[in-house]
């Protein structure tokens, strides 16, 4: 019988390990750089896909709610730090919740279906975009119109969903490579 580190219920940080944390940090930096350069040039009706969110959802889907929570927080914080005029911590809050939620959701979904991660990204993108807009308005931030918010949310859902079949396999390859499968033979 083999029991992985994940199944032994380790906490988020000890579950990460230095090599794995570095791999996730590297992926986050790469994702935000691609999002702000390549994808910022390849917009759909002026809307940039949220690759960092796709990464957070994918890792949460692959490695569970603890990894999803940690990666979601730091991914969101990085986005906040790089946006002009954004409330620092707002995206971190949303992505943390999404990382946790998707991590839990994976136990209830058929993991072998190719559609599951795609649909998960679509749902998570809608929640993230509308949740961010709602929180920003509640916190009294100046905001674009409702029509514009719905347009942006719809296009982000569409674009993120289209990216997932190409990006998810790459993320899975890296996640599999750095997963601490310290196998204990019993």
């Amino acid at each position, binding site marked *: 019988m083999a029991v992985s580190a994940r199944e032994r219920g380790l906490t988020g940080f000890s579950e990460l390990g230095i090599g794995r944390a570095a791999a996730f940090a590297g992926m986050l930096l790469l994702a935000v750089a691609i999002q702000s350069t390549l994808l910022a040039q390849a917009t759909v009706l002026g809307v940039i896909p949220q690759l960092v969110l796709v990464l957070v959802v994918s890792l949460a889907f692959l490695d569970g709610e603890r990894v999803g929570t940690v990666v979601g927080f730091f991914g969101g914080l990085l986005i906040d730090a790089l946006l*002009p005029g954004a409330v620092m911590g707002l995206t971190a809050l949303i992505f943390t919740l999404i990382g946790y939620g998707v991590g839990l959701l994976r136990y209830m979904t058929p993991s072998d279906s190719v559609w599951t991660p795609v649909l998960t990204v679509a749902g998570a993108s809608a929640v993230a975009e509308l949740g961010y807009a709602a929180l920003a308005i509640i916190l009294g931030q100046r905001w674009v119109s409702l029509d514009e918010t719905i347009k942006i949310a719809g296009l982000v859902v569409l674009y993120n969903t289209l990216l997932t079949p190409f990006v998810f396999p790459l993320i899975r390859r890296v996640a599999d490579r750095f997963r601490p499968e310290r196998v204990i033979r019993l």
Partner: protein
Amino acid sequence: MYRKPGRGRVLLLVFLALSIIVITIDYREGSGGILRTAKEWSVAVVAPIQRGFTTVVRPVGNFFASIGELSDLRDENERLKDENEELASENSQADEVLQENERMSDLLELEEAWPAMDKVHAQVYAKDAGNYGEGVYIDKGREDGIRPNMPVLAPEGLVGKTLSVTAHESLVVLLVDTNFGANARVKDERDTGLVRGRGSADPLTMILIGKNSDVEVGDEVTTSGLDEIYPPAIAIGEVIRAEVQGGQASKTIDVEPYVDIAKLDKVMVLIRDGRAVGEAAGED
């Protein structure tokens, strides 16, 4: 599968609490203190990767663009040569006028005219990664004399102002950002007011200080020089709507910016001295 969901929940609560603490600090400190440092570090860490991507992608994009425009290039070249000669002669005249202007400004202790100010030319290498904030990154920073809250211009007019500045990079908030605001005046009219951004999909909006106004469609809007950031007479845009809406005493004014933010490439930062530029990057 055996799991202990409780530990995930504790971790969630810890990171939610951290997020709320960060939000609270942001509201208390504005853009100063520890969060400013965190933002500057983030810009500096991501910058080399962004610049790498831009360096690789730009020549490819330019190559395809050039193929499409090849037939127009020869005509363009001839026209530019002619223009260049004209501009060279105009430039020498402008230099004289500029020097005269500087002398007069010194005598009258007026605010420095922006064409006479020191400028740092910079290249845009990335855009902000979000769909709500409107910003770009430029490849010049603190070591080039740039500080937060310095005006950024393109040949067409005002682009925005610097926000987070690292040693070699700066984040520029664009004039279409919802948090952007600048004191402005309508050229050839006495009306002054505040120009605000409404996101990249919408024109700027101008709120006039006086209620009765002769502002009309087609009027040019420039900076007024009444705030501490932007010197006067920088072109902002053109009035595309000026009408009184039901129940309101003043006109609703929409301004289309001259700068095409989707095509920003080279910009210049006006170097203002410490007297005029507040270090705190608060609201305009």
